[in-house]
């Protein structure tokens, strides 16, 4: 008589496909994630991109250099000045033009303001994805609106500025710029502090983000991760320090570096970067020299000599690179964009190993992708 009364061995389970489609409320653009889940755990992940592809690189082959700047605004639409700046730097490198000192300072001021604006948007979306209903959105956007008002006063547009030019910038700063920045800086400082107070020490937030989406430094470097995501893993690589461009080697700022490479460290690194950007802004405002804002040896019709050049800069998302091949005409022969978000996306499957479904949203929010950069 057998006493083997054990129940059937482990019941059959089927893995489910959960589709977080191109439209979802915790949206960072039109991005589709197909998750393979086993109960609660994510066992596999596939990302589907291309919903925002506009053929920027091909379009650029048919447009003059001056017109290409407008294309670059729209790539990473949260960091417009950074994109324009990189392209303008590449063309300046090809043509051997050096912008005047004042133009460099103006550029850095706008770049750092844009970095703060981009990180505020990150804060807004990240908070919303961890579940705070709308409050982080309002805090982030409240300050962002003020920054965009400054952008509008300088360049004429809140987002698609078309302001940087080969050899300098389009126009000088408005007369009330000092007053505007004097009003803005304390407000930004207070805003960053409030954003910090709301989330950083919140226990629920810590539970949701600490230890989630961990990626090791070795994996990160192998996958080509860059920007605050890489620095959160402990690798102190910042293009502004590693390969200084513009006037960054004259400016005094620190690079925040995390330790564990989880969502919380990525968040903290970005919060700290906002403070460092404020520091840079103060220095740039103080050291702003007088002078012209446009180099005088730039011809009206931009015709870079034959050759190729590559420049990469520190976008709020990571390392943004532009590679241009010129064949002497007034349109680029080939333009290749190294979008940081595109490469950062590659690390998602590694981060999502053994995550819960609810964590998938948080991890996606923490790497801060912008689909304009991914799809170009």
């Amino acid at each position, binding site marked *: 008589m057998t006493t083997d009364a054990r129940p059937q061995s482990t019941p059959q389970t089927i893995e489910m496909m959960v589709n977080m489609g191109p439209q979802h409320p915790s949206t960072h653009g039109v991005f589709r994630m197909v998750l393979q889940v086993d109960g609660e755990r994510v066992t596999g992940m596939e990302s589907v991109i291309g919903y925002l592809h506009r053929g920027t690189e091909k379009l650029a082959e048919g447009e003059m250099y001056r017109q290409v700047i407008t294309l670059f605004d729209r790539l990473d639409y949260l960091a417009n000045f950074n994109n324009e700046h990189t392209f303008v730097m590449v063309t300046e490198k090809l043509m051997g033009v050096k912008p005047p*000192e004042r133009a460099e300072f103006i550029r850095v001021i706008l770049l750092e303001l844009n970095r703060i604006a981009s990180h505020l948007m990150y804060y807004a979306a990240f908070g919303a994805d961890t579940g705070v209903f709308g409050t982080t959105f309002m805090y982030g956007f409240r300050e962002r609106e003020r920054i965009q008002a400054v952008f509008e006063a*300088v360049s*004429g547009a809140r987002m698609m500025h078309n302001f940087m030019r080969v050899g300098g910038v389009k126009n000088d700063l408005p007369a009330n710029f000092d007053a505007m920045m004097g009003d803005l800086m304390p407000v930004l400082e207070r805003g960053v502090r*409030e954003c910090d107070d709301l989330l950083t020490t*919140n226990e629920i937030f810590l539970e949701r983000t600490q230890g989630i989406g961990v990626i090791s430094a070795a994996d990160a470097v192998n996958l080509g991760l860059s920007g605050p995501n890489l620095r959160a893993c402990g690798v102190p690589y910042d293009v502004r320090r590693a390969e200084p461009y513009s006037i960054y080697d004259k400016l005094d700022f620190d690079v925040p570096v995390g330790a564990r490479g989880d969502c919380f460290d990525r968040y903290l690194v970005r919060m700290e970067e906002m403070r460092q950007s404020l520091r840079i802004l103060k220095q740039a405002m103080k*050291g702003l020299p007088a002078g012209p804002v446009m180099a005088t*040896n730039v011809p009206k019709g931009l015709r870079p000599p034959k050759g190729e050049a590559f420049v990469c800069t520190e976008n709020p998302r990571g390392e943004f690179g532009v590679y241009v091949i010129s064949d002497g005409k007034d349109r680029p022969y080939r333009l290749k964009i190294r979008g940081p978000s595109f490469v950062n996306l590659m690390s998602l499957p590694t981060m999502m190993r053994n995550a819960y479904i609810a964590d998938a949203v948080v991890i996606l929010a923490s790497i801060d992708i912008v689909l304009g950069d991914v799809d170009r």
Partner: protein
Amino acid sequence: MIGALKGLVTTLKTTLRRPVTAQYPQEHMPLQPRYMGFPGLIWDDKVNESACTGCMACARICPTECITVSMKDNPLFKEGKSPRRKTVDHYKLDIANCIVCGLCVEVCNFDAIVMTDQHERGGPSRGGLVIDIDTLHEWGTGYVKRMRAQGIEPTTGSPPWERPGYKPPQAASAGAAPSEPKAQGAATEAKGEAQSK
């Protein structure tokens, strides 16, 4: 628990502040002086003709090819009243395509086009979004008048430092050493030098 309480206190502080909402359309957020809306054409009052000569520089530079221009011989030139040989015949601007980049204003050789503050131009039909020359002149002249009434000279083609009466801005702080403009064209190395990484 303490961290959560900190978050609660922060939200309480913001409750006591004025809301940042501007109730559109009753209230409109203020536009900065340099705000770039859709372009408008300028009318030359002294000669009573359009400042535009139809040279198509703007149409050529437009990244989205939203401008259609044609030129004709200027009858006022034959009568000796105007220095412009040609004048604009037809001018159409499709604001459905315009990306308000401002390039057309930059390249205009005659300071005839300006970025106005027109921005709420939605309409029920696509055809209605193609703006003809008379409306463009209305926009342009209206904008210039409004700006001059506020004491602001609207930005047209030539960059500010090429216009008469330009005063370069002073250094931001008194303590900074007055830096003479860096040698222009410092990079006059051979044009053919290709610098690759």
